[in-house]
């Protein structure tokens, strides 16, 4: 019965309801399903609903730290106002070897290596991708192929976000003190299996290498496709 909450997640997904509403509904249904018995009356179900809502409210309050990161946007917004994105565009246009594919491959490697060293907060969509990486990638493409159409511009931006995510995910687990490694260690300890964080992070390396090879190959293909469709801008144009 307590799996009804998961069913609500799936249903909400299919119906494309607002995710905040889906999550809240899934929590309430889980609480109600756990309290439901064939003889349950409205009063006891109402009580269960209130108890679940309280539990959710309590968890929401303790998890506020998750949403603190948005404060970063005050500084990023201020720098954008002062022309940070424009500066990033002109800077990269001056680097003649820069292409979208090479730029994102370099960012991917830097992001993966720094994440593997535990420096996950060096990147991110609000701090790096919107203010710096995306304008640079667009700037590199414009310098090479001239003005971009909307479709290509949005493809390039999506690639910037993807490079940040993939490099982070398949880099961070190599660092021994990252949350996911500690979660695995804690879970295994509760189940009576002792492992060292070092053992876990060591086995994250093969996947990290595979992700690097696969994604850099895809970035190379993306650059090739851009070159085929847009053609290289003539020098001096």
């Amino acid at each position, binding site marked *: 019965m*307590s*799996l009804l*909450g*998961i069913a609500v*997640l799936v249903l909400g997904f299919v119906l494309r309801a*607002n*995710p*905040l509403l889906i*999550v*809240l509904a899934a929590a309430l249904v*889980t609480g109600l399903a756990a309290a439901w018995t064939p003889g349950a009356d409205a009063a006891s179900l109402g009580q269960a609903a209130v108890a*679940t*809502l*309280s*539990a*959710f*409210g*309590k*968890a*929401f*309050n303790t*998890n*506020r730290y*998750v*949403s*603190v990161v948005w*404060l970063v*946007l*005050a*500084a*990023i*917004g*201020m*720098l*954008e*106002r*002062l022309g*940070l994105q*424009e*500066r*990033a565009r002109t800077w990269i246009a001056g680097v003649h070897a820069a292409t979208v594919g090479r730029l994102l491959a370099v960012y991917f490697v830097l992001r993966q290596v720094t994440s593997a060293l535990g420096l996950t*907060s060096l990147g991110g969509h609000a*701090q790096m*991708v919107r203010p*710096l990486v995306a304008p640079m990638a667009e700037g590199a493409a414009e310098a090479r192929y001239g003005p971009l159409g909307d479709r290509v511009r949005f493809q390039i931006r999506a690639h*910037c976000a*993807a490079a940040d*995510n*993939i490099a982070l995910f*398949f880099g961070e687990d190599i660092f021994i003190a990252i949350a996911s490694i500690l*979660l695995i260690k804690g*879970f295994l300890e509760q189940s009576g299996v002792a492992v060292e964080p070092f*053992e876990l992070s*060591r*086995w*994250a390396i*093969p*996947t990290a290498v*595979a992700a690097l090879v*696969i994604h850099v190959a895809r970035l190379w293909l993306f650059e090739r496709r851009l070159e085929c469709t847009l053609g290289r801008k003539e020098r001096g144009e």
Partner: protein
Amino acid sequence: MIALPHIYVLGGLFFAATAWFTGRDERNPHRLRAASFWTLLAVSFLAGDRLGDLGNGLLVVGLALLATLGLGTGGAPTSTVEERRESAQRHGDRLFAVALVIPASALLGTLAAKNTPWGARLIDPAQATLVSLVLGVLIALVVVFAWLRPRLHAADVAVLVPMREGARLVGTVGWAAILPQMLASLGVVLLSAGVGKQVGLLFSEHLALDTRFAAVAAYSIGMALFTVLMGNAFAAFPVMTAAVGLPVVVQRFGGDPAVVCAIGMLSGFCGTLLTPMAANFNVVPANLLDLPDRDAALNSVIRTQAPTAIAVLAVNILLMYALAFR
């Protein structure tokens, strides 16, 4: 010592400013709803500890309903394209230097809080990165005003300008800003209702996992699929590992638990790349980058990630099969 409560006050003020600027944005047809949404979040940050559990629960109901009705999009005033070009030329690479102040502070603050006595006295070591990140924002803003001396419009109050610029960006992120916090709370409720055990039973009753490869594939793919639903590999990991990873792959077939769990978690990350429920990774950037299909179930960030995610998941199954049973 600076700890989370101080940061929450700052966050509350920031969301209150967001509510104020959103409410005055006449280009947003739903500005009242949007302003109410950010006001509720500000109340949560400023007074959440005094609302009581049910009060916080009702506040969340309000947030979810307002988000469902729609917050609209506006056009908060900022600098014009010409002003930005001119400013970019005037400040040059100093803009990059200020941008790097934030991650640098996050890094140095974390190191100082964990390794030095004075650092631990200044920054709560338990929340070192978060506190240092917010301090980095404040330092960056001080540097902006003291070093770059931005030209402001006559009507602007200096302290409010970053708040308004931040509000503009938070407005683009929209309700997705609190989805991660909501999912974390859902995890707490699911855990206390024993959902993990139920999923384990479901798996063991309905799937014949009688070869090593079937077990490895079921665990890895299960991690990815459950992560797609939960939006978070951390929520899927205890459920799927207790259901299939430990009892079948490790105990029945003798897999190495370190290999199985490490690669199992990374299979979950492949799921994170594929789901709109992982809002902070897949929806927030689509909003921040103004992608036109940001509200689609599979927006272009997810579609761009999908080939890599699926390929890495396949590699993970092979790697676990090859490495766990040496």
